């Protein structure tokens, strides 16, 4: 179970307040209008944003029964993946993955094997020596996924990971993500704007509006919703 107990934070003028329970081992789509607070939810989970001062029993975050909001970002059992800037431009694909295991890049033979395996799983086995600039946008996100695999953290936080890609490529990547999550029994929170991606990828949808969880349910239900806020977000075509 992934649980946020009345986690509050204010950024500028805007107030965010999340009270949320999500099953583990599933992919959850996080949807909502721009600025509604989707990224803030992920940033709070990852520890990039600190919650406001807490009252006892409130503002706590749990993952699989363990309290995580007291941990530093690097100690939390999760891996983030952004729309871009996931890679270090001057490092090879291999080094970018190796960074996920040890930041001085000195790997044991066994760890080197892990990196090679991860590269195979994301379909980049023959590109280990390339630099990010020699890769396409989709390949770069594959590298980032590869690093998420070698980090072996149970929860993935993906903030519009494939929004910058073409529709066909986005579909491929979505499928790859789904396969990897199933193979490695990972949970994932995916911020996306595409209802189709959400349907293809996620069993659950969390809809955020004005800094709060507005609606939560299965992805099939989500598309059938008669809720005015959701209908306004999805538009007439869906």
């Amino acid at each position, binding site marked *: 179970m992934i649980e946020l107990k009345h986690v509050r934070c204010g950024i500028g003028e805007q107030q965010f307040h999340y009270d949320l329970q999500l099953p583990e081992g599933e992919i959850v789509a996080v949807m909502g209008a721009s600025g509604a607070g989707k990224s803030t939810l992920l*940033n709070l989970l*990852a*520890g*990039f944003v600190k919650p406001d001062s807490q009252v006892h029993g409130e503002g706590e975050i749990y993952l699989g029964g363990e309290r995580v909001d007291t941990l*530093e*970002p*690097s*100690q*939390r059992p*999760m*891996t*983030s993946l*952004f729309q*871009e*800037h*996931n890679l*270090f*431009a*001057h*490092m090879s694909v291999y080094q970018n993955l190796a*960074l*996920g295991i040890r*930041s*001085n890049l000195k790997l044991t033979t066994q760890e080197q094997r892990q990196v090679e395996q991860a590269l195979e799983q994301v379909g980049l086995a023959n590109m280990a020596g390339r630099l990010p600039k020699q890769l396409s946008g989709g390949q770069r996100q594959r590298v980032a996924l590869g690093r998420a695999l070698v980090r072996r953290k149970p929860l993935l936080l993906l903030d519009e990971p494939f929004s910058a890609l073409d529709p066909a490529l986005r579909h491929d990547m979505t499928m790859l993500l789904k396969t990897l999550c199933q193979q490695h029994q990972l949970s994932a929170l995916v911020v996306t704007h595409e209802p189709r991606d959400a349907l293809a990828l996620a069993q659950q949808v969390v809809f955020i509006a004005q800094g709060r969880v507005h609606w939560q349910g299965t992805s099939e239900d989500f598309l059938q919703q008669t809720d005015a806020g959701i209908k306004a977000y999805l538009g007439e075509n869906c």
Partner: protein
Amino acid sequence: MFKLRSWHAFSGISFLLVLLPLLTAVGAFLSYTEQAQWSLYMQESYTWRVVWFSWWQATLSTVISLVLALLVARSLARRTHFIGRWLMLRCFSVALVVPSIIAVYGIILLHGKQGYMNQLWHWLGGQPRSYVYGLVGILLAHVFFNLPLAARILLQRLEAIAPETWRLSSQLGMSSTDLWRHIEWPHLKGVLPQLAAMIFALCFTSFAIVMTLGGGPKATTIEVAIFQAIRFDFDMAKAVYLSLLQILFCGFILWCGLRLGRPIDMFASQGVGHSQLSLRPDTQSLMGKLHDTAVLLLATLLVLVPLVAVVIAGINDAWLQVLIDVRLWRAFVNSLWVALSSALLSLLMAWGLVLAQRYWRRHHPFAAEAVEWTGSIILVVPPLVLATGLFIGLRPHVDVFAINLYVVVLVNSLMGLPYMLRVLSVAYIKVSSDYDRLCSSLAIYGWQRLHQVEWPILRRPIGLAMALVAAMSAGDLGVVALFGSPDIQTLPLLMYQRLGSYQADAAGVTAVLLLGLSLTLFLVLERVLGGPRD
């Protein structure tokens, strides 16, 4: 047809204004080549000592400024909530327009024999030492100017690093060393060669600082040697020889700089330091805090304290006596006139050249390129060398001491020209690509176009450029010293004389007035011409 001719004339005058002084100077140099006893100069150990010192002090200044700037930029990037941050960045941004003589004065107040440092040292039980005149003083002054410049450019680079990168680094648990190796250094190293080239060129041609703090047999650069040859030895041939040597070296330095990449804009870092949120994972450790405190204190000591010392020294009883002195106000008016004229002339020259460049860009890209080179001549023939050429070339024909302010204006506007030209040509290209089609479809031409479309876009960069040229010209102490006569004073010259004649109180008041003039010119012109900020 009339329109075409009017800009032709405008551009033509600009070209003449840029090229005539240069041709006069070169002609003057060439007329002396037969008299000059080259082989004699070549053999003189003095010449080689001067050449060696020029390169040595510029190398040291560059290395020290850059290393300190890297440390300062990193500490500023880490300490987004440090209280003095705003003040420090503000001081850094105006340090560039502080007149050299004021920086020198501040450094003497701090490091001179009766300076604060020696007082502190004495209080601690040591004997006062004299270290400010010579290499140490020159380095302190060069660091005063170049540390802020470099630190701002580097800080801008650090602030351009994507927030995702910092988040990623905190998730990967990177240490401060890792951050430096994997994030900061890769982001900074690209700009270092050009930055080094720029600082080196500035230090290699910094005349006023070396004249005031150096000048002895051990600490003289080529430009100061030229000055001494003219003013003290009346040896024109030697001045010509040294000038040609300086042109050769400056050409070489420029060539090296261009091979390292496109020159960076030394004023591009306006508005740096606004990011409020530090996402870095390495801001909490005690060692990091101690390190940053030490670095920022050092930067304060090197840059802020000299300025504060100048202001403190200006608060004394000599106010009235100085302010009722007519000479001071004549000098003040002259400086103000020099500043405004230089800024305006520089703008007009640049505008004329840019119009020609715009016309040629379509058909003769090579000619458009040549325009840029024409405007950058001052980088190869530095101000003091150009002034030397003019001095020698004009002396037989006119009373050079009577026209000194005009020469000061001309040389200062040429100094601002490379920057002015780049600012204008970049802005013009943008206006052109954004609005050419729209303007022709709406039939907006000529004056209407200038007034309605171009000015609102151009005024910001023009305002900043003119503010800088004006402030720098107000503080100029190169050309004016060479052409200086007792009758025609400027504030920096007056300040220089008072500094030399031990009128401490009068010097203090003059310094505050000069500093005030430069800063006011800079801030007012930037605001007034640049227009309201968004």
